[in-house]
């Protein structure tokens, strides 16, 4: 389109839009370097320091500001995210595999699965707490909260795999079958390498969504805190820059995860290219 005035205007707007998206996070990151323990969560920066980062790890002398209970919470959150990642990826791959063929009732099953990502955590969390109460089951992060995390992340894995299988050429598998290779071995040797990028994406989705999930956990996890619950606990009290420092660290962790994902993805693409070249030669 040659409406260049409009294009410039929209471009400037998009730049502002990005400032709107990133501004608060940048401010939060700057304020995390506020001096402590007397410096508050606002400008001006009295003195630049890493006090609040040390505070997070318990390296500062005790002060009136209680440290965030993150040590145990981190272990729980990571464990929960790994469990959720494995189970929802397996469920997502198998369900999407079934969807490769048309079957009666596929619409109902599709909506049943997608419902898991649509229903808000506050509702399914409340329902799960009621079920647990009625059955007399204790609520824990590794039981009631875990199954809800899978309910939430399984649809994402399913949709990612569905998209992958839509672009998938079944003649590869048929070739393998017609050569007498068992379906299980065909899946391992032919199907899985081809869908690997999708599996990786599904795993990334499931891990990060579970790691960040808190409304389901709030109702279904009982007394033990996960990381998001520890953060949520600070909402009702005065906020100190230690929460900001934690925010910076957890954001860096998410980026490291994204980086690992990108590296694995690149490796897999490169390997696929190498195989393709070998086949041609």
């Amino acid at each position, binding site marked *: 389109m040659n409406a260049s005035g409009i294009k410039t205007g929209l471009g400037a707007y998009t730049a502002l839009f990005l400032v709107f998206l990133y501004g608060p996070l940048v401010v939060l990151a700057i304020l995390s370097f506020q001096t402590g323990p007397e410096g508050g969560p606002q400008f001006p920066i009295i003195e630049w320091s890493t006090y609040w980062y040390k505070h997070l790890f318990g390296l500062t002398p005790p002060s009136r500001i209680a440290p965030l209970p993150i040590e145990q919470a981190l272990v729980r959150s990571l464990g929960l995210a790994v469990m959720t990642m494995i189970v929802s990826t397996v469920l997502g791959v198998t369900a999407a595999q079934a969807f490769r063929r048309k079957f009666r009732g596929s619409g109902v099953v599709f909506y049943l699965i997608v419902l898991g990502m*649509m229903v808000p955590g506050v509702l399914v969390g409340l*329902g799960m707490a009621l079920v647990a109460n009625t059955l007399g089951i204790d609520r824990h992060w590794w039981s009631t909260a875990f199954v809800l995390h899978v309910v939430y992340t399984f649809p994402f894995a399913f949709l990612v795999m569905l998209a992958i299988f839509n672009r998938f050429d079944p003649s590869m598998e048929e070739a393998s079958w017609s050569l007498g290779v068992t379906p299980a071995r065909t899946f391992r040797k032919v199907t899985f390498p081809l869908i690997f990028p999708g599996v990786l994406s599904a795993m990334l989705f499931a891990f990060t969504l579970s790691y960040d999930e808190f409304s389901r956990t709030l109702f279904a996890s009982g007394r033990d805190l996960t990381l998001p619950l520890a953060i949520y606990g600070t909402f009702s009290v005065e906020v100190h820059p230690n929460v900001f420092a934690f925010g910076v660290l957890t954001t860096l962790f998410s980026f490291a995860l994204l980086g690992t994902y990108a590296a694995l993805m690149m490796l897999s693409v490169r390997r696929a290219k190498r195989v393709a070249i070998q086949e041609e030669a």
Partner: protein
Amino acid sequence: MSMMAVAEQTETEPVVEKKSPGKALWLLAPGVIWMSLFLVLPMLMMVYVSFWTQTTFTIEPTLTLKSWVTFFTSDTYLGALWTTVRIWLIVLVATVLVGYPAALFVGLFVKNKALQTVLLVLCVIPFWTSFLIRVLAWRPMLGKEGAINMILMNLGITDAPIEVLLFSELSVIIGMTQIYCVFMVGPIAFMLGRIDTSIIEAAQDLGAGFWRIFRTIILPLSMPGVVVGAIFVSVMVLGEFATSAALSGRKVNLLGNIIVTQVGSLKWAFAAVAGVVLTILMGAVVAALLRVVDLRKEL
């Protein structure tokens, strides 16, 4: 049923089974069972418990309409319902208004594929950081001594800090708009990227101005994106309680906040009623939006 499927599979063992319906059943069963037990059952339980009798600290399975009557005669609960609907509508409109121009630029005006990808990734990156941290990040922005007030005062636009920015309905709306507008930008940019540019060129050749092209071509073709984005945003905003808990100073009570406080004081039956009301509201909104667009076709 499952036994039959096993029998079928063993019978056709030597042949490569491609069309046995039993196989699809086995692949689907784990997921379907999981969703039935841990999604459908809890939701049904919520409906059931909303008719239970609430005593001070426990609930008893004696069916009654008392909690429902309490809900619809209490100003607090009805107020929360109204607040939820109001905030949802405002945030929905705000995300469209804020997100659409950015999506228009990324999806239609940026011809360079690499730049387009970079811009979309830039929009998505905040989504990978902690939701609660993003909510909390608005506190040092909007506060009385916050960044926005500081900038406004330094520029001489205002003399005194604007106090209404934080711990008000406005702060909740600002926070939600920022957090959820990405879900509007994505689907809209996707639909805009699929527009055949020769249609627009044809319209230009025939002398149509930008606004006319926008009204008659771009906007109608991008509507499925707006609707999909609206479904995402609606579902997330209606189920919210964290943003209002963090940014409103307890002044804004959504249905989600009602549920949290009721559960906190062990009023399970009331919480269940609020949950059912919220479910019905959300179902109505999504059903209305789905009438406009077939989600499965768009994916």
